[in-house]
């Protein structure tokens, strides 16, 4: 081995690294023969020794415990902030949630709308049935009694209806039951002064229960006289509003006058 070869291996030799046995022997032989290489080898050994002393001094140095505590708290807070790294199954579940959430929201809205609709229908039905089928056939007080009315010529007192829409008021007179309920349907917000319903022809309670509709008409004021109502002769030629109850068969069953 020459000096150049020795220079290549002197580090490993001084640091006691694993190397080929023959190469090691040659290097040691060369250092024994060459004074310059021997000095070089000695310097390297000294440096290795000094570095080991230095390393030993620092070997047991350690970070203060507060840093570990700080890092552990950081780890805990980081766990709170981050989500677990998304794996494949988690991704699919996230995707499922991504699509399921809007669908669930739409379904909830639809269910709410349906519920509101049903509720409003349920509220409307009793009013209609009360209006159209106010009394049962076995009722003791039929709503319209044509013969009595016509025969006695009794005119029901004019009532002022101030009912709020959608609310049922308490029915006082059995005779005026239908009239009141129908009037409630007609009277939206504006209070009207009306007479009771006066039966036309030979209407009975059963005729009225068959159903029908209320038609607002305008008639000559003289018509009131035909039903036995008092007419102001000064306003004889004026027209007057009236509600005609038209039965299911298309025939007028009752009438009332509106002021």
């Amino acid at each position: 081995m020459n000096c150049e070869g020795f220079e290549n291996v002197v580090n490993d030799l001084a640091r006691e690294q694993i190397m080929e046995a023959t190469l090691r022997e040659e290097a040691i032989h060369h250092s024994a023969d060459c004074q310059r290489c021997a000095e070089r080898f000695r310097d390297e050994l000294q440096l290795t020794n000094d570095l080991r002393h230095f390393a030993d001094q620092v070997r047991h140095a350690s970070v203060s415990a507060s840093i570990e505590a700080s890092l552990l708290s950081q780890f805990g807070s980081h766990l709170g902030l981050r989500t677990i790294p998304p794996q494949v199954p988690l991704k699919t579940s996230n995707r499922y949630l991504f699509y399921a959430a809007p669908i669930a929201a739409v379904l909830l809205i639809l269910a709410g709308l349906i519920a509101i609709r049903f509720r409003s229908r349920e509220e409307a039905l009793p009013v209609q049935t009360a209006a159209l089928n106010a009394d049962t056939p076995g009722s003791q007080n039929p709503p319209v009694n044509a013969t009595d009315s016509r025969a006695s010529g009794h005119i029901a007192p004019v009532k002022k209806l101030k009912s709020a829409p959608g609310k049922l008021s308490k029915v006082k007179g059995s005779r005026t039951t239908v009239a009141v309920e129908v009037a409630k349907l007609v009277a939206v917000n504006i209070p009207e002064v009306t007479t009771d319903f006066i039966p036309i022809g030979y209407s009975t309670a059963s005729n009225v229960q068959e159903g029908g509709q209320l038609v607002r008409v305008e008639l000559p004021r003289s018509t009131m006289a035909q039903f036995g109502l008092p007419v102001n002769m000064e306003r004889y030629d004026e027209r007057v509003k009236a509600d005609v109850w038209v039965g299911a068969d298309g025939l007028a069953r009752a009438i009332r006058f509106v002021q």
Partner: protein
Amino acid sequence: MKSYENLSDGELFRLMRAGDETAFATLYRANHARIYRFAVQMCGSRTIAEDVTQEVFLILIRGAEGFDSTRGPLSAFLYGVARNQILRRLRRERFYVALDANDHSQNKPAALEDPTRAETIESVRKAVLSLPERYREVVVLCDLEELSYAECAEILGCAVGTVRSRLHRGRTFLIEKLRPANEQTETEVKTARCFA
């Protein structure tokens, strides 16, 4: 109960990523000392070394995106992160001079027992710190931390031959610096190898 001490670094890292705090604590206790030593020997300041150690493990907490267990051990990755942090700190603070020169003194009782040895160690420390960074890191890793050439090459991201040549050059610099002043003027270290 799991025996965390028997788990490899890769397994501990996986558990840590899943939120296991004990796995992180085990990883920290297994690796923090060497990272801290590397930082102390590289920059000579305990304060900076503690900052660097903390930063390295904070990066680990935040996910350690660059770590691939198939490419190498976790310790090599941590050394690499520490090295980048140290170089960044050194470049940032190269314009400043430390007022407290005794920041490095770690074992004063021992130094008082053997003044000559303490003096030698201090001179070695200064010589190591005066090395250019590229030689210093190789000397620290191979001589002080006693890592193999391959491990050092993995940490530094260079070839084994590069590590060998840098170590050779670094040690030569150290010998020159540690040679007594009178001896240094008489005989210059002349090597038969060209380091260009």
